[in-house]
């Protein structure tokens, strides 16, 4: 479904990822892990169109999307939840969610995803009229994921969704990701909580200083001794 081929992206000449290739098949949950600064976020940005790759190609459903404007990529069915969330701070929770479904502006289209969001994060339903900026850190994270779901994506990309989320909910989020996948979406997820993430993922990639260090099924990666030592701290 998504194919990233030999993508190199740089910030002002500083290469953040170089010749990274990954594949995501329809219905998969793919986890990308790696140390801080390894280039995980950069990879997602390059796919989402927030950064323009210097070279390489990104294809989504057989169509090249690198070089497309970010909003066009979103409208093609890729939802991206960035690390810093980028909510609309002075708009209410309700408006943030409504904007998520801007592309499918009809109440009928809204209901299903909205139900999903409220089922995943009932807290949001209690906070509908509150401004996004006054939400607690964790609530903001829920809203960011919720908003992305409202775009009815086929591919959902999450950058460290567990950040700032309480333990009980972390599990729920990963379970939610699973349910999201079961609802027909594909998920590409960047996570530090590798052990939890690998539990739900089908496949995983490990990045190191801008390159793919390792790839394989989640189960393989999870038992790999190097990974356990270097990334799981075991």
């Amino acid at each position, binding site marked *: 479904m998504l194919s990233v081929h030999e993508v190199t992206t740089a910030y002002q000449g500083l290469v953040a990822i170089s010749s990274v290739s990954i594949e995501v098949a329809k219905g998969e949950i793919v986890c990308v892990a790696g140390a801080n600064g390894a280039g995980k976020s950069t990879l997602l940005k390059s796919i989402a169109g927030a950064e323009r790759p210097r070279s390489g190609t990104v294809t989504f459903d057989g169509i090249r999307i690198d070089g497309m404007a970010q909003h066009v990529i*979103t409208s093609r069915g890729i939802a991206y939840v*960035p690390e810093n969330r980028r909510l*609309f701070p002075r708009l209410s929770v309700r408006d943030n969610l409504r904007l998520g479904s801007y592309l499918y502006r009809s109440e009928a289209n809204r209901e299903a995803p909205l139900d999903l969001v409220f089922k995943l994060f009932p807290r949001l339903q209690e906070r509908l009229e509150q401004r996004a900026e006054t939400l607690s850190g964790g609530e903001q994270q829920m809203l960011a994921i919720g908003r992305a779901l409202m775009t009815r994506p086929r591919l959902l990309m999450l950058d460290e969704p567990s950040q700032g989320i309480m333990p009980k909910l972390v599990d729920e989020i990963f379970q939610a990701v699973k349910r999201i996948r079961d609802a027909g979406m594909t998920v590409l997820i960047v996570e530090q909580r590798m052990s939890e993430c690998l539990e739900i993922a089908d496949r995983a990639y490990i990045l190191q200083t801008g390159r793919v260090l390792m790839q394989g099924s989640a189960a393989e990666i999870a038992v790999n001794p190097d990974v356990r030592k270097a990334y799981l701290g075991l």
Partner: protein
Amino acid sequence: MTAETIIQSLASGLLMGLLYGLIAVGLALIFGLMDVVNFAHGEFLMIAMYATFFLFAFFAIDPLLSAPLVAAALFVFGAVVYLLIVRFAVRAKANAGMVQIFSTFGLAIVMRGLAQYFFTPDYRSVTHSWLGGKTVSIAGIYLPVPQLVGALVAIAAFGALYLFINRTDFGRALEATREDAGAVALVGIDKNKVFALGWGLGAALVGLAGAVMAIFFYIYPDVGASFALIAYVTVALGGFGSVFGAFAGGIIVGLVEATTAMLLPPSLKAVGIYAVYLLVVFVRPRGLFGSM
């Protein structure tokens, strides 16, 4: 001072206030809601008035009829200004506010220069129009018809804008783009399209105002300057982000102006407006109804 004088003054003030509102409604959208500074607002009004004038002078189209035409022309103009100039100004991350101020200030100067070049600095007026010079008098209180119509247009424009902003997804998209122009792409919104439409709409509202103003006001390249500051104060007084605020702001400005002129030498009547603005924001730093 007789009661009649006072009532007449307040009535005139109210009408004038609604006109200020009409002039400010476009600004309430661009400046108030979209949070983009447009220092050329007065010049937008100026070209709208010229457009009305020339439609009248060459094709004998009455301002009432030409108002939609002028609004449409201004819509295009506003969108083009956004795409050619403002788009780049809002993109500046560092001191975006100043960049907006000065690029639109530059635009204002250019527009005045162009108006002078093409239209000469002569003072123009729409001499005969259906409404021009007509007055209704109720119990000794005179209400000029053009201003009355202007007031109605103002109320309609505010109502429409209010519904548009608060009831449509486009309105929400506009606000979202203001909040974080980079993030709207995350929900598939093209910020340039949204903002170009917003500017077009704002300018179209100025076009309406210009058509109404042309009925009873003189027209020359610098005419916008007289209204620009008042429009700014009107929007800020009502509070950023609030359409209703700008409407209320206009009425308050008109009434305060009329009242001040009764109490102080008329040359100081603007002081009343400014003082009320200061008082309001000192007490409520977000203006009367502002959300930002």
